[in-house]
């Protein structure tokens, strides 16, 4: 078949300083490619290059002339940024409370029958009238998937299409992709190499900005590359020390969290009714539940990021909420990472300073740091293998490395309560194993209690025994 786009010995440079090198890659109309590689290997850069980004230093590009429908974190961020601007604009927007899901879906193709069919399959029916920004991580992902599939664009770029989607919907999502992608060209990027769909035919495997393997996905060589990605073992390691003189809990013997008869609803939609929950020091919890079951809302009650923490009976670290404590009194005992935090962490700070901000619970760093904190951060960077990136801008790191850094930021103070909300989204198998090993180490320390949130019930974390399972609201 005819070549749709291609690169010949292309060296392409990006604004972030990253380059793709000696790129030889031809994609024919209707091809189904899997693009794989470790965090920071250049997957996002390759996708951007397909869209025409970057500066060609040498070689040749046969540019794509067809429109692309893309599902990626870049697209999600763009839509979220646009929504924030609209909301701040206030009166000028067509929709006072933000653009509803239905309007977001119709942007690429207003064919209402097709949209309805896809929305029904993925269970989005109830959400169509909701403002897009109110959706949970998994719900957002489903919407973007429907939006891309419903478009008539001949090229589909699907960057981690199952990111954050709950177990029950994953098979449905993959079936939808197979069926609605049809004869179109598909570029699939995923770290989940154990769950690559049958329809993918070719593999392009990236390492340090170059394609080091390309060919049939069924070939044994392809299998070797993919296995290498997931079977490397994590070396034994010891955690860096805690900072001396870190604030201690005012009531060390009382539970970390006590929730009594918690009620939360959004508009008329109840999320929790009479929820009771206690977290005691040393009891590590895994919270599971399908997309939209209120996992993030539950965490926001603990962190103080939900206004409902003032309208419920909550005792956090011995502070009865709403009795004169500040959110910083609460946050000093919490380490926190989530997709929401990742989206909000938009500052031009170096990798090192992002980790240092973990000591102050701030986005960006506004206080002077101690040399002890700097030493501890250097040790953590070494532990996660990013010590060479110390002085580089955080916002120019790959998505996976940013996520790994934000997880580490949550850990640096080894807080009384470490809250990890779907932390591993976007991590390659080895980095995921690294994070799980760090969590296991922390569960063995006497200082930190873990609260691990995941949509996936079949995802046990060693060292975590307590389970809270939230039903769909």
């Amino acid at each position, binding site marked *: 078949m005819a070549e749709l786009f291609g690169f010949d010995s292309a060296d392409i440079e990006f604004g972030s300083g990253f380059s793709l090198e000696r790129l030889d890659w031809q994609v024919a109309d209707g091809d189904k490619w899997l693009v794989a590689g470790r965090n920071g290997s250049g997957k996002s850069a390759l996708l951007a290059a397909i869209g025409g980004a970057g500066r060609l230093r040498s070689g040749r590009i046969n540019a794509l002339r067809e429109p692309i429908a893309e599902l990626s974190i870049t697209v999600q961020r763009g839509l979220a940024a646009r929504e924030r601007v609209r909301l*701040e*604009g206030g*009166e*000028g927007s067509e929709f006072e409370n933000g653009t509803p899901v239905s309007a977001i879906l119709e942007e690429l193709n207003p064919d209402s029958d097709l949209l309805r069919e896809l929305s029904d399959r993925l269970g989005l029916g109830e959400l169509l009238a909701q403002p897009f920004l109110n959706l949970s991580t998994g719900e957002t992902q489903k919407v973007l998937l429907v939006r891309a599939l419903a478009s008539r664009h001949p090229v589909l770029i699907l960057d981690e299409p199952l990111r954050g989607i709950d177990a029950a919907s994953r098979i449905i999502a993959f079936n939808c992709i197979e069926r609605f992608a049809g004869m179109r060209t598909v570029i699939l990027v995923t770290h989940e190499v154990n769950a690559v769909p049958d329809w993918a035919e070719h593999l392009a495997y990236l390492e340090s900005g170059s394609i080091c393997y390309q060919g049939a996905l069924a070939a044994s060589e392809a299998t070797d590359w993919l296995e290498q990605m997931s079977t490397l073992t994590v070396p034994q390691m010891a955690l860096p020390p805690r900072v001396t003189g870190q604030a201690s809990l005012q009531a060390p013997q009382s539970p970390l969290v006590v929730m009594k008869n918690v009620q939360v609803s959004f508009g008329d939609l109840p999320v929790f009714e009479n929820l009771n929950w206690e977290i005691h020091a040393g009891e590590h919890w895994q919270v599971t539940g399908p997309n939209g079951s209120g996992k993030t809302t539950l965490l926001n009650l603990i962190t103080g990021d939900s*206004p409902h923490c003032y309208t419920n009976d909550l005792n956090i670290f011995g502070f009865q909420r709403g009795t*004169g404590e500040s959110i*910083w009194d609460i946050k000093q005992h919490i380490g926190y990472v989530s997709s929401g935090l990742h989206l909000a962490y938009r500052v031009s700070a170096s990798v090192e300073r992002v980790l240092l901000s973990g000591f102050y619970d701030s986005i960006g760093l506004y206080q002077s740091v101690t040399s002890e904190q700097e030493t501890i951060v250097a040790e953590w960077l070494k532990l996660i293998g990013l010590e060479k990136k110390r002085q580089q*801008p955080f916002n120019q790191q790959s998505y996976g490395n940013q996520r790994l850094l934000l997880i580490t930021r949550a850990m640096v103070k080894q807080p009384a309560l470490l809250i990890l909300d779907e932390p591993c989204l976007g991590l390659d198998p080895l980095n995921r194993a690294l994070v799980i090993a760090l969590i296991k180490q922390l569960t063995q320390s006497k200082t930190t209690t873990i609260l691990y949130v995941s949509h996936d019930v079949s995802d046990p974390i060693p060292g975590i025994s307590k389970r809270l399972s939230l039903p769909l609201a």
Partner: protein
Amino acid sequence: MANYFNSLPLREQLAQLGTCDFMAASEFEEGVNYLRGKKLVIVGCGSQGLNQGLNLRDSGLDVSYTLRASAISEKRPSFVNATSNGFKVGSYAEMIPDADLVLNLTPDKQHSAVVKEIEPLMKKNACLAYSHGFNIVEEGQKIRDDLTVIMVAPKCPGTEVREEYKRGFGVPTLIAVHADNDPNGEGLAIAKAYAAGTGGDRAGVLMSSFVAEVKSDLMGEQTILCGMLQTGSLLCFDKMVAQGVEPGYAAKLVQYGWETITEALKHGGITNMMDRLSNPAKLKAAALSDSMKAILRPLYEKHMDDIMTGRFSGGMMDDWHDDDVKLLGWRHETSETAFERESVTDDEISEQTYFDQGILMVAMVKAGVELAFETMTAAGIKAESAYYESLHEVPLIANTIARKKLFEMNSTISDTAEYGCYLYNHACLPLLQPFMEPLNTDVIGRGLGLNDLGVDNQELIRVNQEIRSHPVEHIGQMLRGYMTAMKAIG
């Protein structure tokens, strides 16, 4: 009621105008303690009301809201804002009598009616706070003698006040105590605790006065901040289109140009903005700016004079009483301009191109900032106030134009600022027409397009010296120094 400023003797006028001092971080070591356990009741739940309230509550303070009975019964947006965020909301009669601190965060226009209703309900020795002093200074509202009156004015829109707080930072803030209403000598302690509760202390607080805040705020917003950007947008767009620049491109260059070029101001003042131009372009911009300053100086002086004498506020209050006929008419007129109606191109314009092709826009910013600053300081306003109300705020206003052009700017700023902006625009457009006539696309729309970037050494030294030695650059360097000491950027 009579204009408060005009009732003061000259020495008092000068003393109050000349108040603006950067406060040391150590002055805020007590945090919100002075207000701990006290009842804070906010009147109004718009952008400032809601976002300040969220911050104050997250700082450990007891915050609730009071709204007009109709807003509650009709479940208006202000009521939904407050209740959906878990705040207690009640009528004036229910909430005000128990309040220790009442924060009046309604629009200027409603102030006198609101104060008239709530004042009799306030308990003895309570405190009334404002975030803008128009009502006290221009309307001359007299507040009961036993009540303390203070101002805490974050120098950003409400949404920014909240976002910066959530990051663990804050926005620069002016505070003041009304000299006529500090019966127990506690006004400053309350204002400091209030500023700490909004996060302002982390970004820097200036001790100001009601008079200094109002007079400088009005002057800044009417002239350089909103007026100059509006007039400049219309003139630059029309010029480019008349000279054959593709209208979608011209609209984009203007809409995003202000934001891009004034971003350079944030980092290094006028000096840095001018340094982003090539040497020949810099000389060109400096010459254009000199010409515009000569033409516009009388207009800036007129605005300052009208603000000082109360003529401006008198005229605007007449329009309030006339159902905003003028304001609404001018708003409509703006929406009908060619610039507003043009849709922008999808073509990429690189950051540097905004400078290279927007020499005239750079010159307009330079002329406007310098003129506003010079006029304010000549009228007795302190350099610190004049800096915040001219140079510091330009990028914040430019951001609004980048979102949705002049419509967005005028709906984000207060009605008072919008009214003043239109006044300026009407006077400024005809004044600049003859100046614009001979200009070409080399200074707006296409760039100089020179192969040889050579300039005369002496001329360049003279212009650089002139830019760098302007007083707005001196004070700016100092204040930005304080800010970066607090906000260490990675």
